């Protein structure tokens, strides 16, 4: 039985999430094929072919797949899915957008955001914002699954998979791409950074997020935020960590001026080491942090930057 993994890519580069999804596919077991769909994606296909465990890369290179709109990407996956027992994608906004379409059109259920593989049909996934972990078994012949990248260690680069073009092209008349406003940053991606430092409502305003910059520079960290900080307009939405934002599991997570609502914890409590800086010693964030510092962030942050 073979497994089809939808490659995640941005800006002409294969995203690291793909190597994590391939790791989940390896645990399921079977021939692993990766689908790279987009426009001008030859280099991405080559990067995917190097991933350990991948037998074949299938490339659908056409303007209709540019921007990875759900309708054409879904139709393409439906066309290819017949050859496979599993279709996997990262639980990214792309994977979440597309995979349920594939499941519905193949008349099968979808398992969202699995965090462990028990067997080829049985998986573990968080529910209720991670406050419970469900073990679920799919009774469908085709398993359509999104994978929480942080829950699987990425595969390395060992392979030299064959690369093969997908000739058929679907059409899309229902939706058109208008524009994209993507955040530009020299920092590592939130989802794959080794260190993440996040600010919450306690930061007070967007300007004060600069206090995190120097520390992030020194630690090579990505910068995240709570929803309250995003809602208040301090920072853009792509920085939100949590149940309905990004899921992170870095070696070190530093929460600054964040109270620790369950929806925020859902996105970061699998971090290896958690540090909380909060002036309220009763803040729930301290119940999950390894090191808590009760302090005013406006004093603690400059001092921390200096001492690192």
């Amino acid at each position, binding site marked *: 039985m073979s497994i089809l993994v939808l490659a995640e890519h941005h800006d002409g580069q294969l995203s690291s999430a793909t190597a994590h999804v391939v790791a989940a596919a390896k645990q399921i077991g079977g021939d692993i094929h990766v689908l790279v769909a987009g426009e001008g994606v030859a280099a991405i296909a080559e990067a995917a072919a190097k991933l350990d465990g991948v037998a074949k890369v299938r490339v659908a290179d056409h303007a209709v797949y540019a921007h990875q*709109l759900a*309708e054409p990407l879904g139709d393409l996956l439906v066309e290819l899915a017949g050859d496979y027992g599993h279709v996997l994608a990262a639980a990214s*906004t792309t994977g*979440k*957008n*597309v995979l*349920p*379409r*594939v*499941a*519905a*059109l193949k*008349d*099968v*259920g*979808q*398992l*969202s955001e699995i965090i462990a593989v028990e067997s080829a049909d*049985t998986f573990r996934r968080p*529910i*209720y*914002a*991670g*406050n*419970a*972990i*469900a*073990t*679920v078994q*799919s*009774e469908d012949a085709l398993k359509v699954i999104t994978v929480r990248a942080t829950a699987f260690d990425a595969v390395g680069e060992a392979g030299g998979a064959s690369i093969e073009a997908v000739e058929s092209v679907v059409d899309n008349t*229902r*939706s058109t*791409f208008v524009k*994209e*406003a*993507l955040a530009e940053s020299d920092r590592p991606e939130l*989802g794959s950074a080794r260190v993440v430092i996040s600010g919450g409502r306690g930061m007070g305003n967007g300007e004060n997020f600069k206090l995190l910059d120097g520390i992030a520079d020194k630690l090579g960290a990505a910068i995240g935020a709570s*929803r309250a900080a995003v*809602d208040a307009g301090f920072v853009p*939405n*792509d920085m939100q960590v949590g149940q*309905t934002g*990004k899921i992170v599991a870095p*070696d*070190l997570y530093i929460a600054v001026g964040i109270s620790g609502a369950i*929806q925020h914890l859902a996105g970061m*409590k699998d971090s290896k080491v958690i*540090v909380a800086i909060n002036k309220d*010693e009763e803040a729930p964030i*301290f119940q*999950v*942090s390894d*090191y*808590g*510092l*009760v302090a005013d962030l406006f004093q603690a942050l400059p001092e*921390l930057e200096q*001492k*690192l």
Partner: protein
Amino acid sequence: MKVLVAVKRVIDYNVKIRVKPDHSDVDLTNVKMAMNPFCEIAVEEAVRLKEKGVATEVVAVTVGPKAAQEQLRTALALGADRAIHVETDVPVESLAAAKVLAKVVEEEQPGLVILGKQAIDSDNNQVGQMLAALAGLPQGTFASEVVIENDKAQVTREIDGGLQTVELTLPAIVTTDLRLNEPRYAKLPDIMKAKKKPLDVKSPADLGVDIAGRVKLLKVEPPAERQAGIKVGSVDELVEKLKNEAKVIS
């Protein structure tokens, strides 16, 4: 234009859930239930479209047990004109919900369907996309802005890297993200009025939909608890611990 809004009854988002001692499921007895927060945003968006004169009628629909009528009444109090309850006591998986909704879409022929992006119980994030696929309609998921103009919807979507805008030909499916709007609270007179608004009850069988589940729930466990660590007294101590004890910085 008619707008259809799908709402789901879920546990109130403030409640900390408990897993049943036998690990068969989470324990929902005597737990406060509410409308899924993303569905509140969906209702709000539909009502605002009506207030702007873009929508002519707002129809709320849910698939679930008798008690889910509470959430339909909430939607009516918030400004929906009528409601459809597809009643079942069987747990409804996303695919089944999408199939039922696809039938309702076929019967009602709305110009726009608004759903939440995710139900906070299953955290599935599937139904809107499945409905779009089944109904053959374009989708704008995780919306933070929706503009309707000339039979088109411009939807700004929250994606991992930032924002993406797509244009959809109506009828279309939209799922809401948190920043689309801030839902209003229902006022008492509106809650009273809502009791008199029409609420239709049907069964999945009436719609000819088989809602049998595809996924077996084998076990539900509490997550590994994190132990609270220590409080450090100073920034110096914090840096020292991170270097020498946790060894996560050098």
